[in-house]
């Protein structure tokens, strides 16, 4: 069952088109990612889903409701965590949760929710004194306090350190496991690869691609890359003609072979036959990031873990 349907959504501010033509559906229990660079229309799209903006054209349905017309009821059932929204400095965590709980018909148990989010110990801490990660988790707690059927999480992990990001990801998976449908807005490709069942890549207000991260990466990411140092000099032509191999290049002592799925088997078999050892062999799968760059022509922001070379094969292959 589709929990969210967006059909040809269009929204402009004055002369500037924020969302040109966006269509997608989100199934119940999915984690659906909305990806894009800054200004691609992500935030406007989710604001239309959350009933904060009314599309100029097109149709949006969330849980069967029109988010703009049925805003009152929608807000009982859709929890929203907004990018960069603060809370009063001088309220404690427990006071904020208690206040927001009073907004909903059938709220969750605030104390239990805080424990779940690792904020139990910060219950009597004022908002101003919380760390960035604690503020973010409190913000998630507020999106969940009304026991929503759909949670919209916008730029969930921006500004968090790598450890906090990982625990936040685990948390989001946990929420989904309880049956909550999640719309995740992000410009971090690793986050989308890790969490999302499907993603919509937005570019200039349009859906540039829609599908699972692995499918998008495989389709658009430019194939497998095999990198190694041969134990003795190697004639590139030996590999270039192999099935599945699309390119061979050499940088210093390192050989880079690009190709499709079958290339690795063919390359290793050939090397073995020639008695050449492949030292420092690395196989890189195409990542969602590669697909994103191919789609939008723009480099996404580096992840918070940037600086550490990320073995892409691990990101995609390891967890799936």
């Amino acid at each position, binding site marked *: 069952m589709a929990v969210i349907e967006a059909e040809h959504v269009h929204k402009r501010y004055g002369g500037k088109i924020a969302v040109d033509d966006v269509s997608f559906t989100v199934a119940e229990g999915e984690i659906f990612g909305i990806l894009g660079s800054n200004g691609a229309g992500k935030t406007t799209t989710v604001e239309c889903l959350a009933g904060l903006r009314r599309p100029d054209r097109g149709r949006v349905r969330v849980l069967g409701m029109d988010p703009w017309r049925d805003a009152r009821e929608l807000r009982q059932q859709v929890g*929203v965590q907004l990018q960069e929204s603060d809370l009063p400095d001088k309220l404690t965590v427990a006071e904020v949760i208690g206040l927001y709980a009073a907004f909903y018909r059938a709220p969750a148990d605030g104390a239990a929710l805080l424990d779940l989010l690792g904020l139990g110990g910060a219950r009597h801490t004022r908002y101003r004194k919380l760390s960035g990660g604690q503020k973010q988790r409190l913000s998630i707690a507020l999106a969940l306090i009304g026991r929503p059927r759909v949670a919209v999480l916008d730029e969930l992990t921006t500004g968090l350190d790598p450890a906090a990001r990982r625990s936040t990801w685990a948390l989001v998976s946990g929420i989904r496991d309880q049956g909550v449908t999640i719309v995740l807005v992000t410009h971090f490709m690793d986050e989308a690869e890790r969490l999302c069942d499907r993603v919509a890549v937005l570019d200039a207000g349009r859906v540039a691609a829609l599908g699972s991260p692995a499918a998008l990466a495989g389709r658009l990411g430019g194939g497998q890359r095999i990198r190694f140092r041969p134990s003795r000099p190697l004639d590139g032509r030996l590999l270039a003609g192999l099935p599945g191999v699309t390119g061979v290049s050499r940088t210093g002592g390192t050989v880079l072979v690009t190709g499709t799925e079958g290339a690795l088997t063919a390359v290793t078999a050939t090397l073995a036959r020639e008695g050449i050892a492949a030292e420092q062999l690395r196989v890189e799968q195409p990542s969602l990031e590669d697909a994103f760059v191919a789609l939008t022509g723009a480099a996404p922001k580096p992840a918070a873990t940037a600086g550490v070379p990320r073995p892409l094969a691990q990101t995609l292959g390891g967890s799936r």
Partner: protein
Amino acid sequence: MTAHAVRPARPRPVLPKLALTEAKLLIREPIALLWGLAFPMALLAVMGLTSPGPQADLGGLPLVAVYEPVLIAFISVAFAIQGLPGQLAGQRERRILRRLATTPVGPARVVAAQVVVNLAVALTATAGVLALGRIAFGVALPRQAAGFAVSYLLAAVSMLGLGMLIAALAPTGRTAGAVGTLLFFPLMFFAGLWTPGATMPAAAQRIGSYTPLGAAVHALQESMYGSWPHPAQLAVLAGYAVVFTAAAIRFFRWD
């Protein structure tokens, strides 16, 4: 996991909870409370103790009697102009109001609770000034109570309207606070904070009667001594109340 365990739905009155939260937030700003609640009473006490008798240059009235309406005007500025706009503009700037817009309650009721709490504390401070004047220094309570109430109401609405207008136009909480502080001086000058009653130069008095708090102090003063406030003063106050409130509604932004 327990977070989503079903609990029986029960009606939860949200407005008392909102008001209580706003009251807590106000109490946690002790400087603002000292300024708006304790300072006017302290000032009245100092005046009462240092110059107790009737003064010829004040039209034969004791200083405390002349100052009571001025201090009531001061209280309205402290809460409506110096306090509220900074809070509201800051909440918009930090997207607190935006976040509320995603909940079933919405930001309007939260802002309303804030206004109500500020008004309640301002009323308390006003009652405190009147009570202190009566008990400690023998200043009679307003003799024309209805006229006093009408004058007070119009003054309160015009100041709240101006405060909301500042909150509407100021881009940040800091700007709103600065504008409030800047407006404090002309508003309170014409109210007579520095030159009370008859000691203000005649020209300044005339101009003052067309400013919101100059008119308010005149109207409050007259009703304290038993006469119905001059219609011109009430008209000036009502005009400001309507214009400021309409402008605030026109320009107010939630995000």
